[in-house]
C-alpha cells in the first residue's frame, strides 16, 4: 500500500477508534481508576490535525485528549500505562487520563479544567514568536471552552500579538449533558464569534477527515507565513457518555435518533469508502492496517497491565523542580 496522506488519515482514525474502544471494554474491570473521556466519533479532527502539524509543532488539550495525544504522535504504551496509573505512564501515574504529556512529539500537556490550557497554548505561541522559530502552537478545545472568559482573553492576546496559534474547536454539541442551547445564545456560530474577536476563523465538517485536513493545512500555512492565529470550528459528535465507557442515549439529555444520525456520518467508513472507490486502498490493506493496530494495542494494554504501580511514596515527589 502506498502511504498517502489519506491512507495515513484513515490509519490514524482507526488507531484512535480502536484504542478508545479497548479502553471502553477494559474500564468496567475496575483497573482503570480515574475519570476517562473517550473521543469515539470525533477521530477525524485529531487525526487530521495531528497529521497536518509537524512533529516540532506544539499542542495542548483538555479532559478529552486521548485522540489529540495519539494524533500528534504521542506514545501509546505510555498513555495506556498512565490511564492505568502505572509508573511507566507518561506522567508517572501522577496525572491519569486527563493529564497526558509527550514532549518528544510536542504534546505539551492536557489538563482537566475546562479552558485551562487555552492560555498555555497561547503562551507557547508567544515563546515561538519571541524565539523566531516557525513552529505552530495548537490548542484543542471543546465547544464549552468558548464560554470561559479565559478563552476570550487568550484569543484577544493571540490576535494582538499575531501569534502562531491554531485554535481547534471540536463542537460536539454538548458539554457533559448540557446542549448548546442552555449555554450559548440561539444563532451563535462559534467561529463567527471568534472572528468578531479579531482572528481569522473558519468552520468545516468535522466528520470529513479529508476536508478537515485541507482546512487545517491551509490554516497552518497561513500561520507559518506569519499571518497570525487562526480559529477553526469543526462540527462533530461524541458517541459515548461524557465520562466513562458506556452509551447513554437512554438517560434523556439527547436522543437515540440524534446519535444515529451522527453515527451515519462516522468519519471512518466515509474516508474508507472514498479510498476504496478511488482505488487508493484495498480491503486487504485495511485488514492489514487493523491487524497492525490491534497488535500494537494489545501489546500496549498488556504492558500497562503488567507494569508496576508507582510506589506509594512517589506521591511525595515532583512537587518542586530543583
Amino acid at each position: 500500500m502506498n502511504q498517502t496522506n489519506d491512507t495515513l488519515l484513515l490509519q490514524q482514525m482507526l488507531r484512535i477508534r480502536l484504542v478508545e474502544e479497548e479502553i471502553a471494554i477494559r474500564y468496567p474491570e475496575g483497573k482503570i481508576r480515574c475519570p476517562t473521556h473517550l473521543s469515539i466519533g470525533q477521530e477525524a479532527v485529531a487525526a487530521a490535525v495531528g497529521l497536518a502539524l509537524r512533529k516540532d509543532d506544539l499542542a495542548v488539550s483538555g479532559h478529552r485528549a486521548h485522540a489529540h495525544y495519539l494524533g500528534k504522535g504521542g506514545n501509546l504504551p505510555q498513555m495506556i500505562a498512565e490511564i492505568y496509573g502505572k509508573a511507566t505512564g507518561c506522567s508517572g501515574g501522577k496525572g491519569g487520563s486527563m493529564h497526558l504529556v509527550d514532549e518528544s512529539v510536542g504534546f505539551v500537556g492536557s489538563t482537566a479544567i475546562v479552558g485551562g490550557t487555552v492560555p498555555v497554548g497561547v503562551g507557547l505561541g508567544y515563546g515561538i514568536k519571541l524565539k523566531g522559530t516557525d513552529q505552530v502552537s495548537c490548542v484543542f478545545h471543546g465547544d464549552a471552552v468558548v464560554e470561559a472568559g479565559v478563552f476570550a482573553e487568550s484569543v484577544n492576546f493571540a490576535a494582538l500579538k499575531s501569534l502562531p496559534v491554531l485554535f481547534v474547536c471540536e463542537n460536539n454539541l454538548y458539554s457533559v449533558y448540557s446542549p448548546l442551547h442552555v449555554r450559548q445564545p440561539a444563532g451563535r456560530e462559534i467561529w463567527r464569534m471568534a472572528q468578531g474577536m479579531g482572528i481569522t476563523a473558519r468552520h468545516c465538517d468535522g466528520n470529513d477527515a479529508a476536508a478537515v485536513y485541507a482546512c487545517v493545512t491551509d490554516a497552518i500555512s497561513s500561520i507559518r507565513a506569519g499571518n497570525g492565529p487562526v480559529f477553526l470550528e469543526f462540527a462533530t459528535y461524541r458517541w459515548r457518555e461524557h465520562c466513562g465507557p458506556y452509551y447513554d442515549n437512554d438517560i434523556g439529555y439527547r436522543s437515540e435518533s440524534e446519535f444515529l444520525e451522527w453515527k451515519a456520518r462516522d468519519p471512518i467508513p466515509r474516508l474508507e469508502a472514498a479510498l476504496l472507490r478511488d482505488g487508493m486502498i484495498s480491503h486487504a490493506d485495511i485488514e492489514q492496517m487493523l491487524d497492525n493496530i490491534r497488535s500494537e494495542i494489545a501489546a500496549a494494554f498488556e504492558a500497562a497491565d503488567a507494569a508496576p504501580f508507582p510506589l506509594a511514596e512517589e506521591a511525595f515527589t515532583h512537587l518542586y523542580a530543583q
Partner: protein
Amino acid sequence: MAIKTFAQAINEALSIAMEQDSSVICYGLGTDDPKGIFGTTLGLQEKFGPERVFDMPTSENAMTGIGVGAALYGLRPVMSHQRLDFALLSMDQLVNNAAKWHFMFGGRRTVPLTVRMILGRGWGQGPTHSQNLQAWFAHIPGLKVVMPAMADDAKGLLLSSIYDGNPVIYLEHRWLHNLKGEVPAGDYRVPIGKARTLREGADITITAMSYMTIEALRACDFLAGHGITCDLIDLRSVRPIDWDTIRASVRRTGRLLALDTGFTTGSVAGEIVARMSTEYWGLLKAAPDRLAMPDYPEATSPTLTENYHIRAEHVAAKVAKMVGAKSDVLELMPQRNHPHDVPGDWFTGPF
C-alpha cells in the same frame, strides 16, 4: 424522622427553600441534567421551572457575579460547582464582591448568596479535582463557610445558608453523598457557627469537619472500646468557628487534636491549634497537634493515594500517642473491606 442520604438531604433542603420562598433560585453546571449534581438537584426543575432552576455556561466567574447581582436584587441564589477546583475561576467575584459588598457600602446592602462546592476525592480525581481549600474561604472576612458531615446537618446547614443574609460557602464532600442518617422533616435549620459534639470523652478534644468527621468517629468508637474517650467536635462551620465549644472541651480535656481534609500547612486545623495554644498554653497537658492532608496535590494513580489521606487508624494512633497509651491496641482496629480509593463498594467511577 426519615432516613435519608446526605445527597437527598441536600435535595430536600433545596426543595423546601424553593417551595416556601419564591426568591430562591438554584443554578450551576448540570443542575437540571439526568444526574442532577450527584442527585442533589434532581426533580427541582420539574417542580420549580427553568427560570428558577437552570444549567449554566462554563463561566464560573461571571455566574458568581450574576449570583451577587441577583442577590442584590433580592433573590437568594444557590450556585453549585461540581468541584471546588472549578470555583478557583470565581475568586474575584467571591472575595472582591460577594464577601465585601455589605462592608464596603457601609452596610447598605446584603448578599444572601449560597455557593455549593463539592470536594472531590479518590478514584483518580487527581490534582485538580480534589482540592479542599476551606482554609482560603475561612481566611476571608465577609464569607461564612460550612462543612457538614452528617445528613441532618447537610439539610439544616443548607437551609441556614440560604436564609443567611451573607455569602455562604457550603462545602460538601463527594464521599458523604451516599451516607445515610436521620433527617428531620420540614424547614429544619442548623445554626451557622455552632459545632456539634458527637462523642463525649475525657482524654482529648478532637475537632474535625466534613468527611474527616466520619473517620474520626470510627477512631473514637474504636478507642472508646479500649478505654480512651474523646470529645469529638464536628465543627460544621469553619467560619465562624465555634470557639466556645472548643474552649469548653479543651479546658476539660487539656489535650487537642485538630483534623482537616485540607493541606496541612495553613489549614483550618492549624488555626485551631494556634488559637488554642495562645489561649490555653497554661492548661494544656500535652502539645496540641493536627492531622491533615500532606502538603502535596492528590495524585491520580491508586497507589499514590494509599498513604495520602488521613484515615481512622491514623487518628487513633495519634490519639493513643498523645494520651500516652500503648499503640499496639491499634492492631485490633477493624480493617475496611473496600479499596482505599472509593468511599464504598457502591462507587465504581468514573466521577
